[in-house]
């Protein structure tokens, strides 16, 4: 605690006087509105970075998927016997990239508490 003598009272009064104009209802409302608007609108820089990362991921995943579908074998003895093509390196890379792109696009833009 402070000393609470005459000078302390004077000092506290000076700080209170300095704060008084900020306590006016109009001043409080203007400031509050500004902050609440910022709360409801996500940071533009953050959106641009995440959007850019998501777009890059999608573009890379798209080029990989093209390779997967072009080399798809025609099923001769039923679909299950040809399921091994899904384990090719191209396919796994494509799924991994698609998953990463999906995470960026869906999970990261949410506000982290």
């Amino acid at each position, binding site marked *: *605690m*402070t*000393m609470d003598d005459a*000078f*302390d009272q*004077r*000092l*506290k009064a*000076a*700080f209170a*006087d*300095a*704060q008084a*104009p*900020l*306590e006016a209802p109009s*001043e*409080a*409302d203007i*400031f*509050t509105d*500004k*902050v*609440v608007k*910022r*709360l*409801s609108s996500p940071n533009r820089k953050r959106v641009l970075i995440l959007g850019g990362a998501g777009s890059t991921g999608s573009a890379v995943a798209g080029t990989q998927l093209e390779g997967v579908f072009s080399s798809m074998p025609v099923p001769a003895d039923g679909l299950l016997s040809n399921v091994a093509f899904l384990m090719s390196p191209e396919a796994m890379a494509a799924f991994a990239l698609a998953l990463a792109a999906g995470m960026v696009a869906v999970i990261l833009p949410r*506000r*982290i*508490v």
Partner: protein
Amino acid sequence: MAATDAELTALVIATRNDAAFGELIRRHQALVRAMLQRMCRNHALADDLAQDTFIRAFEKIGSFKGTGTFKSWLCSIAYTEFLKSARKRKSTERVLEKFKTGVDDVEAPRDMGNVVDLDRALATLKEDERAAVVMCYSCGMSHSEAAEALKMPLGTVKSHVNRGRAKLQAFFAEAEVTV
């Protein structure tokens, strides 16, 4: 009956309710802005930092445990924002010079006699002394609350407050003699 800070905080934690947080901002904005204005000596910068303080508080409100007051918790976030900003400012000498002359060149014409005197008096203190004095006298914190917010030992805060107070007393005494 108006909801208490604790009730509003619990509502914000549970529902991320903007309106409830808006009420908390309305209640505490003057305190946070005044504190930052005394520390920065630049009103526009102080208001920007105050906005950042509330945004940061909203983002990490889940970490508010309720062991101290909401006001003290907010002031400690405001002080962290102030330190971050001060570090950036110190990175360029030119910007630093601009802020050093801020009180005389920018604040003096505001026609707020006592406020200008107070800012000039506070400018004579070292940064740590000013922070401790502002926390205790402007925010109404106890020494232990200020120590927690400033992340300093209690004894250090007490000596900063006492030394700062003595300097302010000397400043005002000298000003009265001059007048």
